[in-house]
């Protein structure tokens, strides 16, 4: 067991970045002077009758939740309860902030960008926007060493893409935000929640929202150049939330959630902020950064408060497996955890097995594993496996998978195989199909592009008809960009198409890496190709192949290390840079670079075998 865990360690070599960790001092000015013992978390058992997301809008759901006793609880790095935000207090504070937002002179439907640290203030502002008829969107917090300039650029891109009229960040981040806002003609107000709190109340009537209104934008890429804001309506949101709490999780009155997921990721925001609220369930939060540094704190939170529902990306589970000491297991009781949701990136069966093996002695029950599949473009969730049944997987012949894009169940032992986790069936009101390159639907066990249609699908990317048209196909089929196959009604995801590289759950667009390289004076446009390679240990490395005319070793070294540094600062991941002679990169008949072929070429040059090349060609 030790060796398998150690080998998994390599997969973690890029982790912090993806955790994009909020700050420890998730402060609450109102409580910071009091000792932690004076506050108690909101209870698990609510005083009101449970309603499972049968509301028209988010604010309607909050109005109901506010009449009960559940709410959000925020813990610090040492596991102390720092602040409590009951749904009742949330409603009250959000309504007051809404009046202050209304006083900023914004028009209904205007966007408000908020840097989303794991704090009560973020949640209050988010809901305040909805009460005021404004459209909030969450922006990430910075994490990488030396990332100041890149982070500001990223914020600027998001402010522009969302055409924000106001932007808010707490004291730790408002400096970055102000820099990003410089020169913006659209922004009317930038400040901290405290500064907003100093403003007078507008005292206007707050009309209720309509299901067809936009509820929020979800930015999907942490990229610097072209962030895209997914438009989610109230109707789509509630449809997805209903699917999650009723069908996916089968939420009941004894449930309680625990989460470290960032509020600016769809799984964190939709799955662990909104879904609990629309079911009047309490949540315990640990900041992402605190989880990353001490993953044990999350498990302790689950144990201490008898949480039943907690989600993670697979890499979060790996962090726990890798970094929690065996001696810590003794006083850990995870037996209450009935739904261990896993999603947001490809799930390797071994990740789950290692986790179950490590935490079995602490009462973790492997039947709690709940693999699911989804994406921000479909609000959050698309498929869920059967809750309480643990994970199932399928071993298929690796050769046939690569050569014929067919998943043939392994007949004999000893053959090389790939194993895929069953992500379950679509939520009610959703359909999944797998199509080939020409768009024709494929039968069971044939690998192709995964398309989704249904009531949670986005309206489009905000102010970006071009990308919207590429992603939303005729008949309102959403092209997920993922590859996979269907078997007996269940979805199995086998990889990403080559236009996106997933490193520890973070989607990095190959194009963004390439553009970063093309900004270097030594590099010409269209002479760069970026792709990911995944080794047998499931570690994904970004490879940047560049056609290079430099001859001096010093110059070449300088370019290589500069690129590695830039990629690290922009995306928080290490990359491998290969300089090749001009005309090495393969082009399609139309002269376009093919990342797929570039990747094949790289593998040949470096004598790598490809354990999982189910990835098909570029789009």
């Amino acid at each position, binding site marked *: 067991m030790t060796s398998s865990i150690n080998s998994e360690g390599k997969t973690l070599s890029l982790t912090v970045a993806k955790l994009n960790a909020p700050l420890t001092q998730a402060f609450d000015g109102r409580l910071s002077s009091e000792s932690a013992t004076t506050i108690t978390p909101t209870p698990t058992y609510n005083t009101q009758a449970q309603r499972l997301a049968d509301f028209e809008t988010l604010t309607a759901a909050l109005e109901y939740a506010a009449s009960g006793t559940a709410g959000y609880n925020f813990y610090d790095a040492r596991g102390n309860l720092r602040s409590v935000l009951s749904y009742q207090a949330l409603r009250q504070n959000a309504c007051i902030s809404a009046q202050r937002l209304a006083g900023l002179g914004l028009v209904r439907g205007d966007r408000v960008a908020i840097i989303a640290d794991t704090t009560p203030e973020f949640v209050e502002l988010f809901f305040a926007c909805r009460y005021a008829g404004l459209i909030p969107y969450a922006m990430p917090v910075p994490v990488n*060493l030396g990332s100041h300039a890149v982070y500001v650029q990223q914020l600027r891109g998001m402010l522009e893409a969302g055409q924000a009229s106001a932007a808010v960040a707490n004291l730790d981040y408002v400096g970055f935000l102000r820099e990003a806002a410089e020169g913006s003609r659209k922004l009317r107000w930038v400040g901290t929640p405290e500064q907003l709190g100093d403003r007078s109340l507008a005292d206007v009537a707050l009309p209720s929202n309509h299901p067809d209104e936009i509820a929020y934008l979800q930015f999907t890429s942490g990229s610097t150049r072209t962030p895209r804001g997914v438009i989610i309506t109230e109707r789509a949101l509630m449809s997805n939330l209903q699917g999650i709490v009723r069908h996916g999780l089968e939420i009941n009155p004894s449930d309680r959630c625990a989460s470290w997921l960032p509020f600016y990721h769809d799984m964190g925001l939709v799955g662990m902020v909104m879904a609990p609220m629309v079911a009047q369930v309490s949540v315990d939060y640990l900041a992402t950064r605190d989880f990353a540094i001490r993953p044990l704190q999350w498990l302790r939170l689950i144990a201490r408060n008898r949480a039943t529902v907690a989600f993670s990306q697979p890499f979060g589970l790996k962090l726990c497996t890798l970094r929690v000491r065996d001696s810590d297991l003794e006083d850990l009781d995870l037996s209450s955890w009935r739904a261990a949701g896993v999603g947001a990136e490809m799930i390797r069966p071994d990740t789950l097995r290692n986790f179950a093996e490590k935490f079995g002695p602490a009462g973790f029950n492997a039947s709690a594993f709940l693999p699911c599949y989804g994406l921000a473009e479909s609000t959050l969730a698309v498929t869920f496996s059967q809750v309480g049944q643990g994970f199932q997987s399928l071993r298929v012949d690796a050769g046939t998978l690569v050569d014929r894009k067919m998943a043939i169940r392994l007949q004999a032992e000893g053959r090389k195989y790939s194993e895929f986790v069953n992500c379950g069936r679509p939520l009610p009101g959703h359909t999944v199909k797998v199509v080939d390159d020409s768009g024709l639907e494929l039968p069971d066990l044939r690998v192709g592009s995964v398309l989704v249609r249904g009531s949670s699908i986005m309206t489009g990317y905000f102010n970006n008809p071009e990308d919207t048209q590429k992603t939303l196909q005729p008949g309102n089929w959403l092209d997920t960009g993922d590859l996979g196959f269907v078997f007996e009604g269940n979805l199995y995801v086998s990889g990403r198409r080559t236009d996106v590289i997933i490193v520890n759950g973070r989607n990095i667009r190959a194009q963004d890496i390439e553009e970063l390289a093309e900004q270097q004076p030594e590099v010409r446009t269209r002479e760069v190709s970026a792709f990911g390679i995944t080794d047998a240990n499931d570690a994904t490395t970004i490879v940047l192949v560049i056609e290079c005319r430099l001859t001096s070793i010093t110059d070449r070294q300088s370019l290589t290390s500069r690129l590695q540094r830039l990629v690290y600062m922009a995306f928080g991941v290490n990359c491998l840079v290969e300089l090749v002679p001009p005309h090495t990169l393969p082009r399609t008949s139309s002269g376009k670079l093919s990342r797929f072929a570039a990747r094949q070429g790289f593998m040949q040059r470096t004598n790598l075998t490809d354990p999982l090349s189910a990835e098909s060609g570029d789009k």
Partner: protein
Amino acid sequence: MASDYNDILHALCMHLRKFCDPDVEITPQTDLINQLAIDSVKLLNLIMELEDEFDISVPLNALADVQTVHELANLIHQIKSPK
């Protein structure tokens, strides 16, 4: 104050030693990313150790302006100094 900084710098270098190639010389000007190749998991571990040793909490927004050993030592020094 200066000696505090020097103590911190010294302790920081001891921690960094564990994360990098023994042949690499560590000076205040050494670049954490380029020269020491501190990747994200090393960074997590490093921060955990530093937080435990100095009994501090390193805010990640501050790391955005840290590239060298000196800058990291200075950051710890600032966090430790009474405001």
